[in-house]
């Protein structure tokens, strides 16, 4: 059977994935951090396994004495030994599981917290370009997968390996001859497992991706309920889901086939171990090379070997899945820090772009030779058709991207060379990407200024016309908002973003369609009350509503990556260029 043909590949990730060496280094770091816990778990489990080996040994010696007819007085002692061993085994099994659980949880907490610590320090430019989707899936799906690995696979494997070594050791001690006989199936197991594990990990990943793909389609159907109904896409969505189910099932069938092919060889190995110890061992005993007690204990130990081997085979896959997830978490640590200059301090408030060229890809520039001088305290509007490069220019002026050619400076210092933490005290950008964090409204505001009191918070809300609805919330500033809390409308979320900006109070603001989600009338009202608060600040506004341009000191019309018109509103209207034409049709001043 061949693996199903993969039709589509997911979008390539923009963030690095940890190399095997980096993953190994990180695992070593974790092992060092939790050295004593790890040693404790292994020790406890060793005791438990050793106690578990007493049973077959007791039975073996009982059989030995029975066969020589000296068992009368031994039964009670044997039962006593067995019972004592059982109690020790139970207690230590419980303890090792508990210690293992505690250790696993500590490691997991470290892993997920380390990941977030690194994530919140990523350079803004990297976030802007890579998007946050991949990062979110690393922080959720990969952390969850790793949790399964750390909670189940790692302890089960550790336990199984310790058990395997100890049981094998017991078998060798009982009779080396028997131990060798138990191994006759080993080459078969090794060969077939090699075959299996070369195919399994990739297939299981595809299988779980296929499983998730069904949910993605379903989530979309639910999410887009209105659209689906309006466009009569219901049938199509059902067909699509069935197709995704079929693709997932193809992987399920393939992995099932892998196992159904592999399992018989595993089972045969166990059977050969059992038959080998029984028949060959029986022959040795008949020849007098070993005692019947040794034979009994040996047969039982050989059987006891199957359980740990089973566990190793079963959890090995899961470990590989965990390893892949760990590589994605570790990858975030490998994002290079931007080349910043601690000494870059602005001297003055003037933002200047000189001959700036920029492209997201080599050879495909979206901005060409842009020069722009923004005087402190002035208001500049960037207008122009979609895709002209206005937002890109805004990000360059906010220091998020470094220009490919030319320079963007603030008070003479290059913005892209300053650390992000310094840039944001000077320049802040608000775009359509508004995000309401899970938490109270107060938390959502205070992130901009942690020491702010309620009066300041309310003043900031008032500056963006938001105090009215904020007061109407069930618990005012203490209302839980964000996913799962009170839902804010997109317009309210946008006001929230602007209120944060008021609190952060940088001297230069880049507003990229920052009021586009409000209805036009409210937007204009908001812009004006905001203007009052931001009096004296430099504002660079990208807007598609012309009244924003009308209210600005200077307008730059951006077309195809270049500034095509530049001047104040009256100047541009008087110039009779494209801006003037547009303004007339908008205002109907024909």
């Amino acid at each position, binding site marked *: 059977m061949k693996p199903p043909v993969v039709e589509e590949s997911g979008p390539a990730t923009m963030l690095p994935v940890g190399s095997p060496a980096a993953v190994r280094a990180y695992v070593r770091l974790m092992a060092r951090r939790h050295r004593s816990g790890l040693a404790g778990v292994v020790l406890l489990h060793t005791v438990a396994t050793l106690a578990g080996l007493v049973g077959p040994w007791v039975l073996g010696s009982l059989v030995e004495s029975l066969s020589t007819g000296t068992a009368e007085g031994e039964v009670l002692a044997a039962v006593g030994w067995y019972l004592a061993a059982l109690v020790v085994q139970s207690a230590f099994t419980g303890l090792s599981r508990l210690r293992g659980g505690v250790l696993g949880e500590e490691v997991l907490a470290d892993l997920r917290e380390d990941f977030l610590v690194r994530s919140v320090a990523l350079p803004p430019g990297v976030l802007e370009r890579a998007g946050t989707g991949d990062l979110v899936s690393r922080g959720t799906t990969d952390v969850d997968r790793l949790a399964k690995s750390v909670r189940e696979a790692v302890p089960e494997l550790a336990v199984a390996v310790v058990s395997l070594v100890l049981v094998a050791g017991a078998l060798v001690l009982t009779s080396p001859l028997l131990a060798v006989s138990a191994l006759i199936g080993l080459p078969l197991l090794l060969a077939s497992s090699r075959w299996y594990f070369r195919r399994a990990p990739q297939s299981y990943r595809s299988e779980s991706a296929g499983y998730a793909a069904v949910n993605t389609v379903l989530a979309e159907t639910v999410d887009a309920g209105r659209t689906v109904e309006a466009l009569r896409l219901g049938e199509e969505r059902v067909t699509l889901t069935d197709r995704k189910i079929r693709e997932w099932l193809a992987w399920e069938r393939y992995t099932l086939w892998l196992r159904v092919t592999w399992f018989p060889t595993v089972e045969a190995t166990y059977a050969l171990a059992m038959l080998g110890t029984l028949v060959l061992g029986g022959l040795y005993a008949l020849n007098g090379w070993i005692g019947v007690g040794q034979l009994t204990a040996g047969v039982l130990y050989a059987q006891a070997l199957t359980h740990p081997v089973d566990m190793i085979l079963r959890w090995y896959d899961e470990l590989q899945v965990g390893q892949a997830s760990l590589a994605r978490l570790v990858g975030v640590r490998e994002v290079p820090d931007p080349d910043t200059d601690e000494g870059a301090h602005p001297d003055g408030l003037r933002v200047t772009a000189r001959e700036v060229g920029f492209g997201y890809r080599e050879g495909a520039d979206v901005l060409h030779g842009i020069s722009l001088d923004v005087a402190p305290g002035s208001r500049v509007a960037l207008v122009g058709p979609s895709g002209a490069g206005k937002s890109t220019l805004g990000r360059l002026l906010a220091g998020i991207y470094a220009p490919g050619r030319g320079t963007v400076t603030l008070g003479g210092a290059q913005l892209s060379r300053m650390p992000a933490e310094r840039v944001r005290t000077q320049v802040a950008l608000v775009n359509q990407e508004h995000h309401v964090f899970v938490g109270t409204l107060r938390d959502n505001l205070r992130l901009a200024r942690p020491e702010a009191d309620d009066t300041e918070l309310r003043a900031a809300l008032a500056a963006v016309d938001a105090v009215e609805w904020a007061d109407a919330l069930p618990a005012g500033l203490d209302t839980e908002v964000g996913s*799962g809390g009170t839902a804010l409308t997109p317009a309210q979320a946008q006001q929230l973003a602007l209120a944060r900006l008021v609190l952060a109070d940088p001297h230069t603001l880049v507003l990229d369609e920052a009021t586009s989600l409000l209805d036009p009338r409210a937007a204009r009202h908001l812009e004006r009350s905001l203007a009052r608060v931001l009096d004296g600040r430099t504002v660079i506004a990208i807007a598609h509503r012309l009244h924003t341009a009308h209210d600005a000191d200077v307008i730059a019309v951006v077309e195809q990556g270049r500034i095509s018109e530049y001047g104040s509103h009256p100047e541009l209207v008087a110039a009779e260029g494209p801006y003037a034409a547009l303004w007339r049709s908008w205002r109907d001043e024909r």
Partner: protein
Amino acid sequence: MPLEPLPMPDPGTPDISTPTAFLRWLRRSQRRGQLLATWWGVLELGGMAALPTALGLGIQAVVEHDRAGLWRAGALALVLSVLQTTGCVLLHRQAVWNWITAASQLRQLVARQASHLGAGLSRSIATGEIVAVSSGDVEKIGWYVELVARVRAAVLVWLGVSLVVLVQQPLLGAAVLLGVPVLAVAVWPLLGPFERRYDEQRALGGKATELAADTVAGLRVLRGIGGEELFLQRYRAASQRVRAAAVRASRIWALMQAQQVLLPGLFVVGVTWYGAHLAVTGRIGIGQLVAVYGATAFLAAPLRILGEAAHAYSVARVSAGRATRVLALTRGTDGTGAAAALTRPGHGDLYDPATGLTARAGRLTAVVCGDPDLAGELAARLGGHLPPADGEPAGPGVRLGGTVLDEVPLADARAAVLVHDKEPVLLSGTLAELLDVPRSGRVTAAEALAAAQAGDVLGALVDGSPECAGDAMAARITERGRSLSGGQRQRLALARSLVADPPVLVLDEPTSAVDAHTESRIAAALAGLRAGHTTVVLATSPLLLDRAETVVLVRDGRVAATGRHRELLAADPHYRAVVTREDETPVTGDRPVKEPV
């Protein structure tokens, strides 16, 4: 033995009266698979149970120096191993397939339900809840359904073993017969507390995951404004709460593990003790003693299955409860009762009795409504078949060519009137797939994209999907079009509605996120493409209004004025206030106040 083909052409009509009934229904729709799995399970467990006898015979033969007996025992062990292996492998194959059958059947049911509910979904249930049924709950329900066959096999083999031992050694037989259920029940007292703590751990874990996702999703805000430390502290606290809860759960888990060693161990010791006593007094042979020990140890296998079943049932019942809740949802208006039929929907006027609005057949009508929320409600009403809101009596329905839309079957009403709401969702897939909607065929994808001024969107899409090799139609749109800007998304959605080319098209603020340059081009193209086809645009932008053949002003829920844009602008101060937004007093101080109204 071939497996049943999947997915099923039709997942059937489930019994959703109770969660238990639903589980039973799922089980019954795979009767053959259940029977086969039970049979292979009996073969596997039976082989396992009989193997100790072969071992015992072998050891007895050694004790008696019976070489031929040893070979016979070896042969028996070989036969039993083959049976057990066959059973084991085929049981695995069938059981997994049974699991998959139940899981895919339920997923098909949920998908059909979601499509059926359509616009009624968002009001009645959270997206997360439906997706949870199709991911986590499906696994648990499948697990339980599959497990039933293994439980049957375990019970059959346990009864069989008890019977065999009962005949030979009544006391031992009784011990096996009674011991297994006692041991199986012994884990139950711990199961409840474990489930509770585990649920608590999972709930906290879910919260921490949500916080992580939330923090990372808003990372651009945090990096741009600050507050990383605040959010890190919050996440650390949540993460530590998960750790503490998980440790609490693992305490009980550890106790259960210890118990699972201790109790079956005590059983083995007891039985072996009695067996040793019998052996010492010569009533059974040495080989039989080994067989008794082995058989008692074997009982751990059916015991594990019974323990697993108790766990699976408690979990699956909760999941089945959630599944039946989702499957029992109704849309509110079913629209199947076809009391009326539409003839030539493109030739009738669209009339809304609630506002008094009339959109003439074949004309481009613009509707101006100061409040965007009311505009949205009006747009939705124009399509008919609104999912009923709680407690709100349905007003008189919208009529198309005199026929009340609510009385027409839902599918026909949707085919006649397409309401393009404020936030149309872009479904992921290639651009060609996005535009592949039920359509009239009059408008090509290229024409629609051109009218929506989507040229730069195509460029962005091609740039974003290297695998499409420059062909924009093969470029992929990610979920909800997240890689595109608001304006780009809006234009693609508009192109999609234009391709559909319905007899009546209602557009609610189709260009609110589009820049003025582009909007004026769209307005011109839209008027051209829809010429002669009934179109309603709810908008406040002069660029769009100027293109409309009729503009209707709706104020306080009623039609207040009708005319051309320019006429209304000149005659109606309220209209002018809404569309030019000049009713505000400028507060900037440095600019003269313009024409206050």
